[in-house]
């Protein structure tokens, strides 16, 4: 069974139709990279999949459970269950500035999932260590670099033990010299078979880490498939044009 199944997702903002029927399957352990020009609807797709936006049509299904069916969002109780399936890492981190890193990571598992605080604390410290932030557990987000904040945000998402993670351009708010440390963490997650959907402009990274590439343009999926094929040998003219523009 696929971890995530999107079927014919449609979304408009007023007159502007941003998603014109997107379907996508993400199998367990799969890493999908979503690429495409600015304004093609990549962020909107993630926001719909993570239930931050209401849909105009289509289905969002996690582990066989409908979060959205025919554009209608499930009831509160089911959503609470379904939200446990995924985490989202934002472009600009969105850590809680008034909490230390440890509290940022621990708070939701304890107060949303109701897990044992002492156990969560150990796991949170372990995750921070994995992200290279063991020294920073008691620091506040404002005391950290962008790259450190983004790794903390990844730890925060992971501590809820989601079945999959979404990333929306996780490095594009970072100085170039800080992107590497975040991409390395994501690559490590891929090696551990974490299911992920990653919106990114980093083509070499997408090619290396993803096993499936989706190229979006104008609210539709123009081309998708194996990274070597889509990036190395694109079939559609729009994909070719997009990749050529990036190379310059």
């Amino acid at each position: 069974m696929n971890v995530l199944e999107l079927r014919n997702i449609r979304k408009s903002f007023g007159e502007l139709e941003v998603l014109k029927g997107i379907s996508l399957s993400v199998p367990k352990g799969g890493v999908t990279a979503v690429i495409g020009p600015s304004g093609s609807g990549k962020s909107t797709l993630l926001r719909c999949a993570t239930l931050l936006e209401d849909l105009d049509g289509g289905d969002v299904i996690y582990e066989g459970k409908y979060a959205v069916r025919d554009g209608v969002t499930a009831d509160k109780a089911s959503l609470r269950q379904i939200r446990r399936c995924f985490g989202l890492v934002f472009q600009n981190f969105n850590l809680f500035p008034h909490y230390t890193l440890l509290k940022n990571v621990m708070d939701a598992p304890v107060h949303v999932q109701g897990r044992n605080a002492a156990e969560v604390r150990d796991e949170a410290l372990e995750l921070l260590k994995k992200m290279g932030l063991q020294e920073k557990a008691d620091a506040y987000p404002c005391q950290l670099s962008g790259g450190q904040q983004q790794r903390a945000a990844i730890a925060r998402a992971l501590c809820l033990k989601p079945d999959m993670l979404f990333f929306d351009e996780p490095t594009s708010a970072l100085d170039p010299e800080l992107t590497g440390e975040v991409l390395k963490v994501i690559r490590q997650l891929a090696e551990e078979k974490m299911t992920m959907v990653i919106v990114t402009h980093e083509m070499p990274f997408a090619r290396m880490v993803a096993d499936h590439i989706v190229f979006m343009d104008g609210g539709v999926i123009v081309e998708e498939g194996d990274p070597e094929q889509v990036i190395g040998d694109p079939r559609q003219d729009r994909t070719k044009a997009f990749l050529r523009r990036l190379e310059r």
Partner: protein
Amino acid sequence: MTFQTMVLQLSRGFLTTLSIFFLTLLGSLPLGLLVYFGRKSRFAPLRWLIKVYISIMRGTPLMLQIMVVYFGPNLLLGLSIPQNWRFWAAITAFIINYAAYFAEIYRGGIESIPLGQYEAAAVLGYSKSQTFFKIILPQMVKRVIPPVTNEIITLVKDTSLASAIAVVEIFTRARQIVVAPNSPGMLTFAVAAVFYYVFNYLVAFTMERVEKAFAYYR
């Protein structure tokens, strides 16, 4: 009247000033939050009512509001006015007036918090009330300290408006002393001014400390 007697009488009046000040804050700081909730209610008539209330509180003189609260029960309902209503009428008027201002300050503070905070909380599974009380409210408090400080300093001076209904706080007392036979005259006002000034100095100092206490994050 000796200088000592005058200072003693002003100090007694100042105790009343302090009562008005602290009781007003005690009532209006939390009430402001309720007013904010009303302002944001999904129930349109309540929203509308709160908007009208805020605009009246901000659009008419506080002194007039104090009068209305004091005389209203008698003039509108024909109730007889008990002696201690003076003080409580002033407190009531101050609280409902300042709550309106605080509500608007809270609204500004809450609306300045980035949408990303709500979205992060939603994706992490926080409920609406958890999001508000754990994530939004603490950040709001930090953001509103400077404008709230301004209001509090204004309140110290506004307490003198209670003299409009003859609540014997320090300002009323000073006026009484000045017109009494063989009073210390202008010196009385000078001493009253010192009371206000020193107290406001302490208020500003305290609020600066509060602001510093929140400086551990940005």
